């Protein structure tokens, strides 16, 4: 229990005697009839009149739901004002107030405890402080605490030590058995001290450094949360706090100091200030448990502390165990002054996820192909949120110009990008297994066993290679169950593209890519999307240009890609997402389209992959035109390396076409323009691949003599394209796909 507030502030005064301007304003407010939930009781001060207090009753707006904590409808509070410019403090005055609640300030000794009303620094609070908002904060504190809502699950179970002069950093993995050393990474006095496991190698590196400290690690038994509420000012305080919790801290500290003697360099350790790190398991009422580590810094060296405790003595410059030394008196213990300090844990996946606002830690095995601009940004964006165990594939090396937009440090120049990116992720988590590099190319050679193994165990593939051959390799050559997402920018860097397979890979990335071309060719809002940038950046000669795209543009696009990919998770349907940015960094527009089912049929030496909606569209146009026939041209592409024909869409008949019940002659008006625009908008990735037409109602899709002639005509047109002619016939029995390759026709019917 804290000492009563009125032990410190015990002199009644009139409102008129208040000298602090803020106190006067607050007193005037609560004395007015403007507020109906605060009642003025009296004003007080201390003997020195250095602190003024206004005592008020606060009506707490508690609902009808049973409260979780003992907060009452009416709470009496003292609001205190110091003479310096500062935010007032609010002290609950009820004797049986639940001071163990979170967000009651930790104070030295047994001083009265005030409410922790804001997590902001005082200077920020002062900027927005008003008397009415301060009263609202108090009311809000009570209201939220009544239902245990004030303390979120993400917050530490016990209060941290604010306003500490020291800051410490340590790995969560440090354990009691290890000897530690406290070192600084910066010559600045207030730089944080990093607690690292002690080794001869580490210690030799620190020779001559200033600001070294000697930490000892002490572990106590579990404690219910809310019990450690006092700031110890000296070693006696510290020992008493833990004594009340059933832990003999003195014994533990003593034995740890004695153990230091075993170390080869103990003489230097005894000369450095002592740091006591106390680890305690804190258990909450709702069953949560959290390991909490507090730091106490002695104002004297470890040797002096050990000496005062009567366990070690320095004789002629040598430290030695003191046998039969007297136990330190309370006066001696209280003469060892302590400062409290906060401990920051090393960056972990958990901290990463919490800091990023993610609900859980995402430890998916992610294969990243391409450690360039997009790959390095996206992977670091995700890794900083604790996302992914990374397998980085790239055979390229880090060159000077890469520093313009690749997330690697200058020290990595000349090194393999995959190695350096993996190293960077591993350093982030201080974990050598956070990322693994594979310095090899995916598209031409067979993957190594290591890479195969990565794909076998992958949960997700991110293709940031901006390479069509890599995407094709992922679609056809790599054995992998994990869905692929291709991420890239358009040539000018203004737009970002995310092509995503569904979780079941029912439509592979090559078909998603084909559909992407169809989308950009048919959506007027995406006009000019693939227009080449007009300023190529020659790097290794004219055959090896790199685009002029700024780091902000890469960063923006990468953030969009990473964020969306993470949000999408496992998709039920394959999707295309395109962000169009403006040159002046204004609005970014987003276009999203679900990729339809793509069917696949083998025909002779070729495989035909076609957008299944063509079947429905051809049937729709057939019925619309009935009883006359109709038709038009087909847009698609060929992968001549793998003998694949992609059919992505069909066009309506040109206006000068001739339709009859027994035949269809496709007109010419607009065909040239359509094909030219198709080429331009897709950079030649889509083109004319054949013709389609319908048969009248009741007639099957079997080719007539005229149809055979048409197929030959198509073959002639495409002769120099080194690709077979394609014809589609929509009839009563479905859509017939006919392919003529080297004079031989192959046919199949796709049912409606």
């Amino acid at each position, binding site marked *: 229990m804290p000492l009563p507030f009125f032990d410190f502030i015990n002199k009644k005064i009139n409102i008129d005697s208040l000298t602090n301007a803020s106190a006067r304003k607050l007193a005037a407010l609560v004395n007015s009839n403007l*507020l109906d*939930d605060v009642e003025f009781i009296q004003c007080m001060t201390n003997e020195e009149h250095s602190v003024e207090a206004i005592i008020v009753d606060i009506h707490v707006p508690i609902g009808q*739901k049973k409260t979780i904590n003992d907060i009452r409808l009416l709470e009496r509070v003292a609001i205190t004002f110091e003479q310096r410019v500062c935010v007032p403090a609010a002290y609950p005055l009820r004797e049986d107030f639940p001071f163990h609640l979170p967000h009651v300030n930790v104070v030295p000794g047994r001083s009265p405890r005030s409410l922790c009303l804001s997590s902001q620094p005082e200077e920020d*609070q002062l900027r927005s402080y008003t008397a009415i*908002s301060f009263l609202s904060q108090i009311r809000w504190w009570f209201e939220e605490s009544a239902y245990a809502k004030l303390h979120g699950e993400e917050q530490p179970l016990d209060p941290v030590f604010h306003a500490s002069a020291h800051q410490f950093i340590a790995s969560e993995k440090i354990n009691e058995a290890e000897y530690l050393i406290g070192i600084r990474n910066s010559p600045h006095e207030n730089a944080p001290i990093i607690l690292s496991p002690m080794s001869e190698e580490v210690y030799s590196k620190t020779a001559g450094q200033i600001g070294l400290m000697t930490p000892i690690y002490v572990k106590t038994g579990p404690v219910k949360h809310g019990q450690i509420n006092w700031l110890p000012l000296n070693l006696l305080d510290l020992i008493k706090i833990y004594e009340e919790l059933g832990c003999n801290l003195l014994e533990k500290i003593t034995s740890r100091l004695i153990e230091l003697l075993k170390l080869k360099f103990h003489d230097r350790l005894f000369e450095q200030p002592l740091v006591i790190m106390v680890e305690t398991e804190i258990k909450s009422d709702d069953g949560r448990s959290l390991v909490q580590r507090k730091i106490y810094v002695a104002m004297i060296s470890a040797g002096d502390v050990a000496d005062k405790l009567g366990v070690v003595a320095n004789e002629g410059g040598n430290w030695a165990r003191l046998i039969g030394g007297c136990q330190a008196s309370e006066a001696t213990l209280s003469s060892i002054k302590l400062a409290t300090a906060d401990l920051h844990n090393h960056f972990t996946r958990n901290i990463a996820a919490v800091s990023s606002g993610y609900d859980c830690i995402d430890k998916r095995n992610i294969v990243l192909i391409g450690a360039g601009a997009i790959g390095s940004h996206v992977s670091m964006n995700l890794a900083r949120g604790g996302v992914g165990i990374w397998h980085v594939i790239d055979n390229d090396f880090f060159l000077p110009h890469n520093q313009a937009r690749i997330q690697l440090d200058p020290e990595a120049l000349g090194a393999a990008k995959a190695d350096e990116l993996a190293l960077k992720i591993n350093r982030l988590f201080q974990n050598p297994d956070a990322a693994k590099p594979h310095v090899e190319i995916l598209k031409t050679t067979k993957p190594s066993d290591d890479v195969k193994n990565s794909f076998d165990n992958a949960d997700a593939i991110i293709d940031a290679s901006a390479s069509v051959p890599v995407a094709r390799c992922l679609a056809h050559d790599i054995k992998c169950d994990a869905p692929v997402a291709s991420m890239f920018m358009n040539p000018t860097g203004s737009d970002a593209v995310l092509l995503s397979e569904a979780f079941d890979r029912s439509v592979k990335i090559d078909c998603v890519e084909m559909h992407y071309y169809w989308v950009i060719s048919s959506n007027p809002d995406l006009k000019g999307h693939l227009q080449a940038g007009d300023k190529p950046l020659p790097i290794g000669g004219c055959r090896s240009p790199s685009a002029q795209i700024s780091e902000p543009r890469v960063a923006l696009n990468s953030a969009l890609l990473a964020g969306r990919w993470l949000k999408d998770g496992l998709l039920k349907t394959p999707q295309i997402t395109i962000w169009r940015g403006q040159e002046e960094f204004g609005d970014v527009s987003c276009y999203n389209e679900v990729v339809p089912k793509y069917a696949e049929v083998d025909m002779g030496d070729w495989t035909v992959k076609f957008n299944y909606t063509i079947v429905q569209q051809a049937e729709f146009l057939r019925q619309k035109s009935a009883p006359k026939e109709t038709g038009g041209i087909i847009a698609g592409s060929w992968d001549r390396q793998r003998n694949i024909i992609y059919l992505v869409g069909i066009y309506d008949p040109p206006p000068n076409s001739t339709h009859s019940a027994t035949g269809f002659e496709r007109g010419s008006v607009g065909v040239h323009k359509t094909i030219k625009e198709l080429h331009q908008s897709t950079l030649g990735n889509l083109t004319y691949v054949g013709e389609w037409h319908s048969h009248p109602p009741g007639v099957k899709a079997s080719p007539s003599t005229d149809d055979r002639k048409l197929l030959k005509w198509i073959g002639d047109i495409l002769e120099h394209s080194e690709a077979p002619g394609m014809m589609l016939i929509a009839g009563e029995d479905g859509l017939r796909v006919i392919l003529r390759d080297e004079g031989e026709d192959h046919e199949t019917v796709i049912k409606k």
Partner: protein
Amino acid sequence: MTQLTFYNLGNADCCRINFHDDQRMLIDYADMKNYDDDDDNRSKLPDLLWEDLDELETDSYRVVAFSHLDTDHIKGSSDFFYYDHAEKYQKGKRAKIETMWVPAAAITETGIEGDAWAIRAEARYRLKKGKGIVVFSRPEKLKSWLEDNGLTIEDRANCIVDAGQLVPGFSLGGDQVEFFAHSPHAHRSDDNVVEDRNGDSLVFQARFEEDSQKTDVLFTSDVTHEELGEIVDITRKYGNDDRLHWNVYALPHHCSYKAINDDKGNEKTTPTEQIKWLCEEQGESLGYIVSTSEPIPGKGTDEDKNVQPPHRQAANYYREDVVEKDRFLVTMSRPNALNPKPVVIKIGSTGAKFLSAGSVTIAAAASTMAPRAGDK
């Protein structure tokens, strides 16, 4: 955020409900302010309501319920609302009503004029059309009127809600609110020969739900203890006790003792058996009672001697025996009688909470706790 706003209108009613999805409902509309009197501290009702609608960029209420056609519940309504039945009520800036709730009397009552006439005309127009209206009534009570207009009860069954039923158009699952109709109920509707506006006025329970926490609000218009007693008896008879549970009790008739007992009492009105059950067993002691009335008179004052409500003795019963003293809220007294403000009650996952005058900055207070994002 779901909340109730009871406007300070003297002895008159208008309560605005903000639903969780930002749609709005009004229960009564009585613009009582004398705009020529600078000392009149009653709400500028149309201004306040338009401020709210304008902020939402809408001009429409999901529901407007007229509990009955007395002036203190409808005054000025024909200047504020857009009525479909006549062009006269469509000129200028007017608030549209998606669905109108009225008691049967608002259809059948005769010999009325002004705002009441306009409401009746609109209600009749909507009932004839068969949409945009819910009439609280025994269906039989409307039979004659429907037949005179070439309609049957079956034709308009979707527009009529009987006591003891949930009002159509809302569901707890979808809307996080449902309404249970209590009055006009069978006893009154069947037996009344002479229209009794107060007895035939709307009484219903609104049940809100957030995070599994149900919060009940009882709206009782101007009924007396006799009608309330009948409601209690009928409701209990059908085992619907929970439909009279309340976290917020919008008092009948501006804190009249007649809503408690026939005998006012000297210091405190003693409740009838049914009212005692309704207030002391069905109400939450940490709940709120809202009296839409002038300030409660001090003992021996001229107002105390006035026969009109609010009655000190009734208030004493509510604040001494029913709820915590500071949870008895009088619209013309909060935060003070000189400068009253609308009484706002927030409904959330811990029940109903009164937003005191000082709470206006609570959002700012809460927001200052948010940690700054970044690498700090």
